[in-house]
């Protein structure tokens, strides 16, 4: 009983600091409250993130701010078509003595202190690189210099180039399913935020901007413990569990659950995805959201709030529809919510 009370108190304290963590990031990233909330959920759910957004909307600034607010290091690689896995693990160069040298890459050097690893334009890299990244995400470890390196606090953030199709390698379904969330990041719609971004010189200098964020407002070394406590402590009622399972059924077999979309044959739409891992990720994210909202129990709003970001990139539809983008998946998700009763 005392242990439980202790955990409850610690979770309450951690929540206060998590909210401060969000506010610190908002000092550098304006008009992106939703994105910051989702990133926060991923941090405390220990989930890796696909960020989808146009160039120049502030993805790097966001991730550097996150890294600074967590008090850890930040590493970034740019995906290229000729990149090989060894380029991520090893730093090769010609030494002063003219002999070739192989040192650990930045990623390996920062392994113990790295909470944010940003892989920019992941779909420009070849599948071999994807393969390495999948292991890094799944096991938080890689093999290099003939032994295993662990990344105990790592969260991978990957960006996809959605504009160009040439010399890109689309992430396979299995790789996309490993990502906890796909977070869309758009330019702010708020006029005041837009004005500040364009006219305020503070937003033109990223280095100065990042310094606005207090370093270590939430210690990244605490995140694994906090994530475990959240998942253990935030409860789900029988009604909520039934609701999530019904939602799952509505995604797998939309027609049987009374889900319909105009002009679309749903019986042939879904080709894969909505995996048990995806549903588990959904519940993990919902629990973190409930914790951030100050609750120790899940409500349907928690599930719905994160559903699109957690599930839509894991649902694979018939190629005919896939060519139309993922709008149809989002429509399917909304239709599933509309048709699934609760409680």
């Amino acid at each position, binding site marked *: 009983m005392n242990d439980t009370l202790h955990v409850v108190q610690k979770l309450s304290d951690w929540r206060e600091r998590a909210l401060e963590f969000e506010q610190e990031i908002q000092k550098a990233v304006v008009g992106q409250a939703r994105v910051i909330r989702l990133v926060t959920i991923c941090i405390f759910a220990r989930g890796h993130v696909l960020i989808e957004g146009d160039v120049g909307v502030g993805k790097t600034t966001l991730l550097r701010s996150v890294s600074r607010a967590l008090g850890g290091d930040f590493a970034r690689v740019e995906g290229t078509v000729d990149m090989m896995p060894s380029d991520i693990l090893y730093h090769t160069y010609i030494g002063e003595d003219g002999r070739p040298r192989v040192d650990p890459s930045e990623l390996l050097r920062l392994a113990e202190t790295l909470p944010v690893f940003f892989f920019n334009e992941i779909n420009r890299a070849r599948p071999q690189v994807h393969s390495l990244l999948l292991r890094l995400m799944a096991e938080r470890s890689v093999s290099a210099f003939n032994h295993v390196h662990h990344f105990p606090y790592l969260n991978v953030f990957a960006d996809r180039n959605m504009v160009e199709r040439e010399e890109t390698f689309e992430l396979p379904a299995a790789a996309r399913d490993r990502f906890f969330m796909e977070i869309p990041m758009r330019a702010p719609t708020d006029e005041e935020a837009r004005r500040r971004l364009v006219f305020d010189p503070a937003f033109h200098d990223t280095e100065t901007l990042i310094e606005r964020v207090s370093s270590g407002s939430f210690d990244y070394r605490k995140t694994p413990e906090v994530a475990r406590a959240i998942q253990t402590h935030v409860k789900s*009622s029988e*009604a909520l569990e039934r609701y999530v399972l019904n939602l799952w059924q509505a995604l797998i077999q939309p027609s049987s659950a009374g889900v319909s979309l105009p002009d679309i044959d749903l019986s042939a739409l879904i080709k894969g995805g909505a995996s048990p891992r995806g549903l588990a990720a959904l519940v993990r994210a919902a629990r973190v959201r409930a914790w951030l909202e100050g609750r120790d*129990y*899940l409500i349907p*709003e928690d599930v719905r709030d994160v559903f699109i970001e957690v599930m839509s990139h894991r649902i694979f539809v018939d190629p005919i529809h896939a060519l139309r983008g993922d709008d149809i998946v989002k429509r399917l998700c909304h239709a599933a919510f509309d048709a*699934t*009763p*609760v409680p």
Partner: protein
Amino acid sequence: MCIACLAFALYTAFSASAQDVTVRIHLARPFGYFVGDLIHARIDVSAPPEALLSRASLPNPGPLTGSLELRDVKLRETVEHGARLWRLDLTYQNFYVALDVREIEIPSFDLAISTAAGAETVKVPAWRVGVSPLREITPQKQEEATDYMRPDGSAVFVNETTPRNLAIGAGAAALLALALVARDRAWPPFQRRKVRVFSALANELSARRIESGDGDFGAAIQSVHRALDAVNGATLLSADLPDFLRRRSEFGPLRADFERFFAASKRRFFGGERSSDDFRADELTRFVSALAKRERAG
């Protein structure tokens, strides 16, 4: 028949055997009766206040003579000026086919009265009325048959404006009332009216007589959720309330009730502090009734 208002009244007073019992006979007129005419007479019998009239002694309707019939007898009893008054309204019919002007006799009859002095018989005497023969009319010769007819009386002009307006107004009101009834009962063309989800639910809940403590209460809350989903067109969560109330403004005044309902539902189905749950079955029933009322008004 109203003898009291006739222009001609015959007054006849007869002294009865008892000193303070009097009989008066009133006639509309004592002459001018043709065959088949009705002869109306009123007999007023005045007696001491304690006197009683035996109904059995009243004359019975029926033939009296070969040419006279009593058609109707009505009796009223009052007290006037400290004396008891029996008012007999008699209707005779004359069947005497007179060939000349003469008088016929209306026969007498007896009435039995009980007074303090004992039983008495009061005689209503016979009286006479004049009868007249029916004769053909011999008018002056006319060339046209229509000239024998009296001219039509001039028609009275009636202004139809007011009655016509009243009729139109009444007709419009009747049509409006019919339309309202048809709408209420979903008669054509109102059969496509939106289903009254909350009205049906309110009836169902009142029939189930739910209690706060039993399992039915949870089922009742769920049925309210399903009704809200149906009205919303999709599953309605508490986070959707502001948007829902903006779209369905008729439910706007119930915002506080909505919030209490959703909070109670959350506590019951998803967790939280339930010891503070004071949301009872009667409050749920009132909430649904209020929703039904708003639904009808909307």
